[in-house]
């Protein structure tokens, strides 16, 4: 593999990794935009979904077409539970954003410990098997897993964008995000919209969960790191932009991978955050966020 081939491979690898990052971030981004919530518990929902799928696939031995919907169901139940048990009662009492953030962090820790108790601390991984066999000897980064990750991400983001633009629920979500008070005055049930948003945001983690499960795996102690990735991408992409979450994810993935052409991987976070810092200096509202 010559130098140019290596760069191309690193870029393709970055796009595949970035797709997964974007999938991790979309739910976080939605709740940040629509619900004004820094939803740290998102990392816990992602892990719960992944462990649910792992249990169905490994312990029960059932096929992936059952495991995947089961993972979505686990995520939706977890998202719904967080909304009803934590956010709703706190919002009803007029809790501040900081209080909600702290409660969300608490929920994340509860997920982390619950999964540790149920499955142990070491984490779970599944073998992707031949999905990870390179399709050509020159482009080692291109395999069926990468094609599924990138293709699935584009489809999902396209679907969510259409849902937000065309469906009544999507329009209601946008209306609440634009002006909550006005939506309420016009008779919209804003709580019902939040509830649906929570469940949608939760369900959207399942594709990221199943992809992570079949690559790096997941462990309870990684939940905070996962949600930090989501937060960075949401900030980079810009508040209120679904496209921003996609481009932000792909951008971070690309930078992390391509920087290794010249730097050792140990410098990855430093280089990534330096690039992020410069970008936010130029566009404080993020790549696609509206100016305040």
């Amino acid at each position, binding site marked *: *593999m010559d130098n140019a*081939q*290596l760069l191309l*491979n*690193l870029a393709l*690898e*970055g796009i595949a*990794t970035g797709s997964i990052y974007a999938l991790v971030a979309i739910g976080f981004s939605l709740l940040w935009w629509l619900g004004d919530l820094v939803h740290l518990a998102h990392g816990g929902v992602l892990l719960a979904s992944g462990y649910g799928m792992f249990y169905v696939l490994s312990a029960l031995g059932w096929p992936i077409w059952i495991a995947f919907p089961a993972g979505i169901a686990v995520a939706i139940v977890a998202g719904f539970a967080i909304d009803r048990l934590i956010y709703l009662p706190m919002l009803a009492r007029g809790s501040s954003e900081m209080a909600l953030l702290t409660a969300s962090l608490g929920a994340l820790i509860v997920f982390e410990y619950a999964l*540790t108790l149920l499955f*142990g*601390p*070491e*984490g779970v*991984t599944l*073998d*992707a098997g031949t999905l*990870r*066999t*390179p399709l050509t*000897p020159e482009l*080692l*980064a291109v*395999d069926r897993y990468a094609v599924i990750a990138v293709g699935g991400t584009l489809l999902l983001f396209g679907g969510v964008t259409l849902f937000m633009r065309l469906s009544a629920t999507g329009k209601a979500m946008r209306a609440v995000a634009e002006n909550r008070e006005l939506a309420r005055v016009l008779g919209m049930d804003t709580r019902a919209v939040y509830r649906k948003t929570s469940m949608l945001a939760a369900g959207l983690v399942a594709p990221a969960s199943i992809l992570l499960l079949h*690559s*790096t*795996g997941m*462990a*309870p*102690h*990684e939940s905070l*790191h996962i949600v930090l990735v989501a937060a960075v991408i949401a900030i980079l992409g810009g508040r209120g932009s679904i496209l921003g979450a996609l481009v932000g994810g792909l951008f971070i993935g690309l930078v*992390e*991978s391509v920087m*290794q*052409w010249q730097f*050792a*991987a*140990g*410098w*990855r*976070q430093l280089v990534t955050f330096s690039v992020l810092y410069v970008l936010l200096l130029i566009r404080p509202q993020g790549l696609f966020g509206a100016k305040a």
Partner: protein
Amino acid sequence: MRLLGAIVVALASAVAQAQEAKLGFLMPLTGGPGKMGNMMMEGATLAVEEINGAGGVAGRKLVLVPEDSQGLAKPGVDGIRKLMDVDKVDTIITGYTAVVMAVAPIAEQNKVFLLSGSTASSAVRGASPFFQNAWPFEEDQVGMMLGYAKNRLNVRRLAVMTVVSDLGSSLGAAVKKEWAALGGALAADETHQQTEANFRATMLKVLAAKPDAIYLTTSNDKQASQIVRQARELGYKGVFLSFGALEAPEMLTIGKQADGCYFTSAAYDPAGDNPRTKHFVEAFKKRFDGRTPNIHHANHYDLVQMYKVAAEALIKQGKPVNGANMRESFRANLAQYPGAGGLFRFNFADGSARRSVIVKTISDGKFVKVADLE
């Protein structure tokens, strides 16, 4: 009457506690190295059960008091504080370089004796007169491993994956120095963080340099298995070199992809003829569902047995079993110890240990000895 009853109960409890010998166990029980730490605790637990079954430590019930260090400095410091201040423990089994470096000064200040069977970096050499290692420093074994790789595995081009940690940095430096001394070519020199899980981009770069072998410096078995699996997925057919951290069940979870991993280890052979090893292996299998114990199980079984030797000597002399006395008793009675994990030879001047070294590989889901090095 009630007050009298309460006093009697309190006195009985105090007497019972005075008759206990407490041994702290400050190891990672959660987090990345949590699986390895729990495995080590199985070995220690077996020894505690055997000792108590045979009458305890000179009649005192031995109690293992675990605390989770996560293999990190901060939880390690929290753990030793709890063990000292709440549990009143003055001898502790601990490990992992970052933890030992953080807790050794506290232990010395409070005269708490630290024993380790899992600290691989020479950074802890002479860390404290109250610290005694029972695992040989990996930097001392690197030259032997690389010599074996060059002469027996025909490795010409070596890549090094240095994890950013105390152990990783010193081990990575030792690998480069020893490989240069052997006249080998360094194909790639990469670093990675301790929390890294995705190595595909790094592996693309490493594989572009066409190495015959990749030396792994991580002590996190899960991370090692991820590197090996991801490299194999990208088509790497060469060997991996490393040290005893690779002897962990996590490596076996990746199946045939783990074949071709070679690592140095203290000379423990569960299938060998050493009577202590045979007894340990049989007892372990009986206690833990027929599983074959590995070197880490054996090490921590031996550490608890060594504690018994040192503590019993003190009790027989009528001396209190405290950290300072345990240190002296260890030095007086345990210059050498023939354990289930082989012969331990201690150097009390710098807290190091010497063990016979062998090379093992992973083949068909098993850890197999392939050569004696020393």
